[in-house]
């Protein structure tokens, strides 16, 4: 066995650099802190690649399956004899894959930000937060147990909060960061409850024992407990709520568009490539448990994923802020991944969906990061987020244009680019499992192609906009990551994922099923064509369509009013109908009772002052009559 204990360094390096930059960053030159952070992440990335190589190619398999390797483990806290939280590194195909994704994208973003964030106030802070995020995300993917995962889950949440709120003087950024945190926190509540139920049932947090398909953990709690579902199903549904929150699944998606208030590299890293897929990763992590003990849970996952992807795609067609379009696109793509795992079953070819989902996660990370970084370059050039301020940019930004186009083609599912393969596998799995979902996803594929090319044409073609100062291509630090990711987007599809990352660790024979692929290609091209017609030149078609489907359009444009609903729930219900009454009750009932007791005492004190009248004869009367009354009391009433 190869010794993997060095892998603990992968998360530790970023946190070490976080501390350095965080504590001393304000004293050093900004660029230095950026370079330090980038260096740190490069080391981590190199280590990750090395680990991946070692794991996939230099580790012996048992019965041909990749094993879960506990590379490092230390007890962090003991709850009970059985339940203890460890900190460690668990290597298995998906975690190793995630290592690659996280370190790669993170490194790219680090490099990209050297240019993008140049001259920003708080440059060092930005790099510190990036390092913190990298640490948290790495910790999450390497978690050996569900509690460690939860811990890092929270940490990525807070890193995301910090980065979204990076421009803390901008009220919109502040409220977006708050929203992101609170919504995901709410979802995490579900996650936590899920963990509590799960651990109560199975008596363990540990992934290895949890997912051991022959173990005791997986078999426990399968009896029907509540509303026709087993305890295990409930716990996993709760866990999935956590995942749904992080991955912006309907209806917990509302934070994601707003999260675009953060700097664009952050959006690329956190809100496109890594953190938001944590939900998928979570389900994948617990996949054996889902598949064997709680298939109903998987159904929920599939439907939520499917609906979210449709929902997001529809909205994406109407948005003008390019980052928001990308955000909804992300949501939609993650929906795909969810569908992938949701329609999958454990082991063998049944596990195709799982594999496809992981595959798509990988490819999506590449092209979505590319899209965001490209968008960043555009924004960098025109100083605006809004599509209507753009047009004809292909002349000014050649590299960005090309790379962006590649990304758009990829996401649209054009054959032989990476996403073609991964999306196709998902559709195939869905096709075999659930036809309804399959057709929805097929439709979404078309929508995806449409809105991405709407974006593309609107930015790079369309009318020539007059710019205050001529947009110019981004510096090298920004374009190198673009180019790297473009290459990755093209070729990532050729990685033999079905051999490496599968539900049971055994290699899988996957090939393109043309019965599924052809419709998807057609739908994709259809989407592109429509976009071409509508947006290649400035036309009035969009308005016409918008006004003819007014209700749908307005609804989608306003994101189906979900923000307003949430606002209503939080502001009106929680704030006005719960908290205010509670505060009022506290002041005017509980506290008033206490004050009232004091007041009554005082009032009584004044009431009885007449007893002390100053009249000695009255004193005598009280004296004598008290004596007499006591006499009567004790002679007649209290006689023994």
């Amino acid at each position, binding site marked *: 066995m190869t010794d993997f204990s060095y892998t603990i360094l992968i998360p530790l390096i970023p946190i070490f650099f976080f501390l350095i930059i965080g504590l001393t960053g304000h004293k050093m030159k900004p660029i230095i802190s950026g370079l330090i952070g980038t260096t740190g992440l490069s080391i981590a990335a190199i280590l990750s690649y090395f680990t991946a190589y070692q794991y996939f190619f230099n580790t012996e398999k048992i019965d041909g399956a990749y094993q879960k390797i506990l590379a490092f483990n230390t007890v962090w806290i003991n709850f009970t004899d059985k339940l203890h939280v460890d900190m460690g590194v668990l290597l298995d195909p998906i975690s190793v894959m995630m290592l690659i994704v996280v370190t790669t994208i993170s490194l790219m973003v680090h490099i990209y930000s050297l240019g993008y964030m140049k001259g920003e106030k708080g440059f060092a802070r930005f790099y510190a937060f990036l390092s913190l995020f990298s640490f948290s995300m790495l910790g999450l993917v390497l978690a050996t147990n569900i509690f460690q995962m939860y811990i890092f889950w929270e940490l990525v949440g807070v890193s995301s909060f910090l980065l979204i709120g990076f421009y803390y003087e901008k009220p919109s950024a502040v409220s977006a960061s708050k929203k992101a945190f609170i919504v995901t926190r709410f979802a995490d509540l579900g996650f936590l409850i899920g963990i509590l139920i799960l651990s109560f049932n199975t008596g363990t947090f540990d992934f290895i024992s949890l997912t051991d398909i022959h173990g005791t953990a997986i078999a426990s709690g399968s009896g029907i407990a509540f509303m026709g579902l087993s305890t295990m199903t409930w716990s996993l549904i709760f866990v999935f709520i956590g995942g749904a929150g992080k991955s912006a699944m309907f209806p917990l998606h509302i934070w994601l568009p707003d999260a675009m208030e953060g700097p664009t590299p952050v959006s690329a890293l956190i809100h496109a490539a890594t953190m938001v897929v944590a939900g998928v990763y979570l389900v994948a992590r617990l996949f054996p448990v889902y598949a064997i003990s709680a298939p109903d849970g998987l159904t929920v996952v599939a439907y939520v994923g499917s609906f979210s992807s449709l929902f997001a795609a529809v909205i994406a067609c109407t948005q003008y802020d390019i980052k928001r379009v990308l955000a909804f696109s992300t949501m939609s793509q993650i929906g795909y991944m969810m569908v992938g795992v949701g329609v999958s079953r454990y082991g063998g070819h049944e596990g195709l969906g799982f594999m496809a989902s992981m595959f798509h996660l990988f490819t999506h990370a590449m092209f979505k990061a590319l899209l965001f970084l490209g968008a960043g370059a555009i924004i960098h050039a025109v100083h605006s987020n809004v599509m209507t301020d753009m047009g004809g940019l292909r002349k000014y930004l050649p590299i960005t244009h090309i790379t962006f186009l590649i990304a758009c083609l990829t996401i649209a599912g054009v054959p032989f680019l990476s996403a073609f393969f991964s999306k196709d596998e998902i559709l195939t799995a869905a096709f075999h499992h659930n036809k309804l979902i399959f057709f929805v996803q097929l439709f979404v594929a078309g929508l995806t192609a449409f809105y991405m090319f709407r974006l593309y044409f609107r930015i790079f073609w369309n009318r020539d906009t007059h710019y205050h100062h001529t947009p110019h291509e981004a510096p090298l630090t920004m374009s190198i990551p673009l180019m790297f990711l473009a290459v990755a987007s093209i070729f990532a599809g050729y990685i033999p994922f079905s051999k490496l990352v599968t539900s049971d660790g055994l290699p899988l024979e996957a090939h393109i099923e043309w019965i599924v692929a052809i419709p998807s290609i057609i739908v994709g091209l259809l989407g592109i064509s429509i976009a071409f017609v509508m947006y290649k030149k400035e036309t009035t078609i969009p308005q016409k369509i918008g006004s003819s489907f007014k209700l749908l359009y307005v609804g989608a444009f306003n994101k189906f009013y979900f923000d307003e609903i949430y606002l209503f729930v939080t502001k009106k219900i929680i704030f006005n109908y719960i908290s205010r009454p509670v505060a009022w009750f506290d002041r005017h009932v509980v506290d008033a009772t206490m004050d009232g007791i004091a007041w009554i005492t005082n009032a009584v004190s004044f009431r009885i002052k007449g007893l002390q009248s100053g009249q000695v004869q009255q004193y005598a009367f009280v004296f*004598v*009559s008290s004596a*007499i009354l006591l006499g009567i009391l004790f002679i007649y009433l209290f006689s023994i």
Partner: protein
Amino acid sequence: MDYILSGNQIMFILFSAMIVIFSILTVTSRRILRAAVYLLLVLISTSGLYFMLNYQFLAAVQLTLYAGGIVVLIIFSVLLTSHIDEKFESPALLKKVYGAIASILGAVLVINTLLSYTFIPGIEPAKDVNMNLIGNSLISWGEQGYALPFELISILLLAAMIAAIVVAKKVKTK
């Protein structure tokens, strides 16, 4: 024997009637000097009762100290502080009601309790009360000796005297 007994009864009825009536008059009379005189009569009747019970010494003390001393003191002070013929208005009704409640209730309670109790006379033979015995008791310090209280009362009287002086003393103005 009959005669003596009935005489005793007559005396008792006389004295007790006087005591009760004059007591009430003392506390209700609206002329202060009359009240003092009624008090005197009560005290004298009381000493009559003592005589009747053969406690001549006590009766004498009662007459001299109480009737002679205290009442005279009271009358002096009345003269010092009020006009002799002053007649005060009747006390407020409320006060009367309070007083009546307290005293009637108290009297009923005490009398009721007293009457319900069966007193058992002591078995020791009666002592002949004479001056000799009284004198000896007052200076003996054994059981049934009253030397200590006697000394104590003397200090009390001295202290009372000084107390009275202190209250009455005037600063000499130069």
